[in-house]
Structure formats: C-alpha cells, structure tokens
C-alpha cells in the first residue's frame, strides 16, 4: 500500500512525559454556548441561579447542536457575550464556583443497548469530537447505516500537543472500554487504533490492554504529519479510500478520537456529561509545559498562570498545534470542548515576505491528497472557478503542508480555503 505524502515536523513535545494533573478550580468559568461545528445553544439559566455539575445550561435550538452543561457547581453571575476566534459572538454563561462540585441528581448512568440509545446518549452528554475538529458525535453515529470498521484516532501528529497521548498512556482501559461498548452496540467486528510509530509506549499500552479484547488491532502510522485527518487515518489503518463527496461513516467506517471514545465509556459508567477535558499547555512563553484536566469554560489565562507563564511576554496564543491551531485575538478566551492545547508564544511575529511561485513542486510532493497547491493558488488568484473545480480544490483539508514547505512563503493553504469559499458561493 502506498503511503500518502506528508511532512516531517520538528517534533518537540515537552508535555509528552508530563502526567495529567487536575487544575485547581478556577474563580470563574465562562462557558460559551457554541463549542462545536453547527449552531449555538440558548442559555436556560438566569443570573443568580444555582447550578450543579452536569446541569444543562444551554439548550440546542436546532438539530446541529448538543446541549451545554455546567462544568462546576455554583452561582450563575451573568450571561455575557463571548468572542469566537473567527470574530462572531455567542452568548456565554459565567458561573462562580462554590468549590463543592455537587453533581446534578439527574446524572444517572444511561442504558445503552441499541444504536438509537447510543445516538441519544451521545447527544444528551454534549459529546463532540475531542481531537480538535468539534464534529458532533451523534451526527456521525446517525449518519451511519451499517458500520463495518471502527477507527480510533490516536495519531496526534501536531506539534506540541500530547493530550491524546497521555490519555492512551494513562487510561488505555477507558479507551478500550469505549471501543467494546461501541462494538457491542453497533455490532462492529473490526476495530483499528491508529497511533504514530514514534510513540512506542502508547502502542504498547494499548496492545497490552487490548490483549483480552477481540478484534482490536493497534496500527502503527508513519511518523509524518498529517495522520490524524480522517481520510488519511482511514486509508493508513484500513486501506479504504473515502470518496471526496462522502463522509467515512457513509461508507461504513466510524472514526472517533481516542479521547472521545474514552469519554463515551465514562458517560456510560457515570452519566456525567462532557464537563471537563485534558488540555496541553505549551509554547515558548510557558516555562512548565503540562497536561491539565480542566472544567470546560476555564479561562485560558488560568491555565497559562498555572504553567507559570508570564502573560506580559505573550505575543500570540494558538488553540491547538502549530499547523492547524487557530490564533486567539484576545486573552479573554475559555477552554472549549474540542480544544486539545493552548500554545503561548513570546517571540514577535517574523516578517515573511511573500515571493512569486517558482513552480518547484515541493507543495505537490508534500500534499497528502495529491493536489497541486501551486496551480490551485494560481487558479485562485485568477478566480478561475472552472480550473479550481478541475483541480478538485474541495478535497483540501487545510493541513498546511504546502504552506509549510513553500520556499517562496506563499500562503497556499489559506488561498485554497478561500478558493473553496469561492467555489461554494458560485
């Protein structure tokens, strides 16, 4: 089987040896009403109301949403506005924790026997893809007719991030418990877990834990970026090519992040919805890189201060890794459900002079999808819609490999994203 292209990133994962530690409860949590792909929720609580851990505080108003739950017990202080990285604002519930972490009495382990139970559970628990994408898990499950393979994503190929890796090392049983649950309910025989081959400890931990389980294989992935993208992952673990106009679920492959899978298991055991997650804190403005278990909605500043970061030096913050992490416009941000890392940087932005394309073809050799970024870039500059369609601009997943390798510093990936918008508007 031919491997897909990719790039070797300078791998510095300072947090990979650091155990997951729980962050002390913050003084205030700000929970935005939109943390996933889809539509925002509507706040259901009022200021001065007491809320429990796991209580629903945001109600979905459309089918493309899951409820938002309080991650701490305490008093709602205010319903404010939250600025998303893309500039849009959504309502946001601010809660002052009382430190008791009283769990809502309605949080009871659900009965999951049929597929519909699982879909309901995934929806009710507020489950979204924890690997960074923020896909709605219940939508994935309901899109699927018949699942033949379950692919668990433990690739975590981005720089700096280690939250999934720590999950695989510390809680392999939860991941496999989740896999077993899905196997039983969806009658899946084949489970593949993709882990990069440069993480032998994680591969060993999962293989050991999977010894007694049936049909679970750990697949080593090449140590190149990107591997965590679903089409690349599905191809490298199963050899199945997902057509561009279909999602993996539609051809019988369910892809879940290892952390999402572990969460589904936890939910089936305890009935506590998605109220906390593991976040890697790193970057050159952070002296002590760490992996923190934090309540959803914790201000990003609290995490940075815990990692002894000097906020005055910070010039840039990424939500996620260096290749795909969105940069935050302000410090006033909270930890959201799909957020797997916070990277704070102190070096000032380097001026990059953008040159003309010399057509060296490096971008083409780096592209995992066999696209020709240089030609797409040129077609976008000419607003040549027909050429863009011919070159299959829609396949691009914005992994950024082309921009990374370009000797002329062209923002190829950005231009292709704009081209995709152009295509969808015409």
């Amino acid at each position, binding site marked *: 089987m031919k491997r897909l292209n990719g790039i070797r990133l300078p791998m510095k994962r300072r947090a990979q040896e650091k155990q997951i530690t729980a962050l002390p409860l913050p003084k205030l949590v700000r929970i935005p009403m939109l943390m996933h792909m889809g539509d925002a929720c509507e706040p259901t609580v009022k200021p001065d109301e007491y809320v429990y851990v796991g209580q629903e505080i945001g109600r979905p108003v459309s089918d493309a949403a899951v409820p938002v739950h309080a991650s701490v017990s305490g008093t709602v202080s205010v319903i404010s506005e939250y600025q998303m990285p893309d500039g849009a604002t959504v309502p946001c519930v601010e809660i002052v924790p009382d430190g008791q972490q009283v769990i809502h009495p309605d949080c009871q382990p659900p009965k999951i026997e049929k597929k519909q139970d699982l879909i309901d559970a995934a929806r009710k628990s507020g489950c979204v893809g924890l690997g960074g994408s923020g896909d709605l898990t219940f939508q994935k499950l309901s899109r699927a007719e018949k699942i033949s393979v379950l692919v668990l994503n433990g690739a975590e190929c981005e720089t700096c991030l280690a939250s999934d890796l720590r999950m695989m090392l510390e809680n392999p049983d939860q991941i496999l418990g989740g896999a077993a649950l899905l196997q039983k309910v969806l009658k899946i025989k084949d489970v593949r877990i993709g882990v990069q081959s440069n993480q032998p400890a994680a591969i060993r931990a999962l293989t050991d834990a999977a010894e007694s389980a049936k049909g679970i294989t750990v697949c080593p992935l090449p140590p190149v970026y990107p591997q965590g993208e679903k089409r690349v992952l599905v191809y490298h673990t199963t050899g199945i090519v997902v057509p561009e106009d279909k999602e993996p679920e539609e051809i019988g492959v369910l892809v879940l992040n290892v952390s999402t899978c572990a969460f589904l298991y936890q939910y089936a055991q305890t009935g506590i919805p998605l109220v906390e997650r593991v976040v890697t804190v790193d970057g050159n403005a952070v002296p002590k890189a760490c992996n923190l278990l934090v309540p959803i909605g914790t201000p990003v500043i609290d995490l940075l201060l815990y990692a002894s970061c000097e906020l005055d030096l910070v010039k840039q913050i*990424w939500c996620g890794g260096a290749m795909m992490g969105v940069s935050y416009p302000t410090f006033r941000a909270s930890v959201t459900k799909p957020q797997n890392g916070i990277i704070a940087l102190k070096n000032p932005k380097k001026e990059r002079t953008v040159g003309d394309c010399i057509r060296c073809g490096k971008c083409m050799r780096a592209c995992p999808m066999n696209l020709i970024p240089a030609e797409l870039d040129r077609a976008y500059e000419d607003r040549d819609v027909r050429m863009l369609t011919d070159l299959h601009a829609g396949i691009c997943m914005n992994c950024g490999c082309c921009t990374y390798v370009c000797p002329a510093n062209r923002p190829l990936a950005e231009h292709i994203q704009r081209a995709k918008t152009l295509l969808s508007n015409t």
Partner: protein
Amino acid sequence: MNKLSVESTPHIRSRSSVSGMMLCAIAALLPAVIAGVLYYGKNAALILLTTVGSAFLFELIGSLIIRRKQSVHDLSAVVTGLILGMLLPPDLALWKAALGSFIAIILVKQMFGGIGRNFANPAAVAWIAMRLIFAKDMTTWRVPDTGAITRVTPLVSGGTGYWDLLLGNYASYIGTGCAAALLLGMIFLCFSGIISPAAPVAFLGSFALLTWIGGYDVLSQLLTGSLVLAACFMACDYTTTPFTVSGKLLFGLGCGILTFLIRHYGGFAEGAVFAVVLMNLLTPAINRITRKHPFGAVEHKKERKKKKPEVESVSV
C-alpha cells in the same frame, strides 16, 4: 497585557527559501565555471562576469520599469546569467554577451511575468537567438592547449580522447567542456533534494540509447557539445519543466529524441538547447496529462455545453 497577533495557519514554516535554492544551484555550477576559466583564462571570466552582472542589472531595471515587486534578491537572474555565460564561446565580444542577458531577462523572463511565469528557459532562448544572430562568432572556438582558433568542435571532427572530453580539454563553450564538473554539480543538487534526477537521466539515457541504435560513438556524442549542461541544469529548471516524476521522465525522453534528431538530421551541430526549448513549450500539456489523481477524487460529471442564451434582437 499585549495585543495578540493573529495569523492564518500554519504558524511554522520550513527553512527552505528561493534564494537558498538558487545559491545551491550557483554552487553546483561553480566547478564547471572554474574549469572553464582555467581553460580559457581572463576573457572567459570577463564574459561570465558580464552575463551575470548584466542579468542582475536587467532584472533590477526590468522590475522597476514594469513596476513589479523587486525580485532581484532571489538570485534567479544570477543563475540565468551564469548558465548563459557558460554557453558562450570564450572570445565573444562583451557587448554581445550583454545582449544575450537582455534577451534572457527582459524579453523572456520579465515580459512574460517574471520568475515562475516564463514559458521557456531564458538562458536557452537567449542562446538560440544569439546562435542565429551571431552565427559566426558563436561557432568560433579556441583549443585550450594551443590557443588555436577553430570552427569545428570534436562533435563534428571527432578524434578526441574520452578523458579529454570528460575533463573539458577540447574546443568548447566556456562552461560546457568539463562534463565531469557538470555531473558533479548535478549529483550535489540531487542529493540536497533541490532537483529530481528524473529529467536528466531520461534525457541522457534516451539520447544514449538512440545514438547506440544509430551506430554512433555513444560516449563522445554524450560528452561533447552543450548536452550535459542542458540535461543537468536546463532540463530540471523549475518553471519550465513538468511537476510530476512521470512528467519529468516524459520531458527528458522528448529532449533526448529531439537532440538526436537535430544533431543527425538538422542543420546545427548542436541540438540539446533547441530540444530543451521545444520541450519547454510542451510543458503545460505534459503537466496536464501527467496530473496525479487526487486522493478520493470523484470525477465531476461532464457538463453538457449549455446552449447559448438567445440574444433578443433589438429593433432600432
């Protein structure tokens, strides 16, 4: 607290740069340049300085006149000037050499949109123009040992030993003689990952095969003339050769066949540079047919040609 800066992803870049790649190309050309200067002395050095300097200057002026973003610092003009200089005979008048740079940089490169947009290799087109304009000067060579002026190269006369051909100890252009130095430069570029060996190998391979079939002396045909320079440094130019490995192989194959045909059936003793330019013109077509199938791509349904909307006639 500071204002945070926002940028699009990815936030990190590899270290490669255009000027870095061009510097590598210059370094790869240097052994052959030095060999040329050693064989042909001061005059050769002056010609090379003229072509490089004037190419640099024309790039600077050209961008200014066309009001394009200044691109002279990417050093691509220096590479063009160097390759052109290497393709000139050692006793050419300097103004003629500068005219060659003008054709290469202004007419072929800048007029067509600057770096990355030229339709054919600037140095190759300039050389062809000069070969036609200064037909006599461009075919007057000097034998390195004796200093004797000659109008024929071993390509036509034959009878030179293989070692002399490999090391460049015969009447040739400034930079094309020492095939060993050129090959050394190309191997360096291949190993540093700057170029792919596909096109040069296909070029030299197909030419050698045809020569062998035709019953000619393969080695002396391979080592003489501008063939090695054209194969090693023109057939792997970025802008004017195909993207994919299969495209590069096809390009090299075409060059090899054309060179053989021109040398043995054409009116010129030299064929390689003509072949490269002819294949340059085919590059967009080769790129189109050798395009890789994108991963998971579904062919778009062919749109039927829509009938042209009938134009309502306007009565006056």
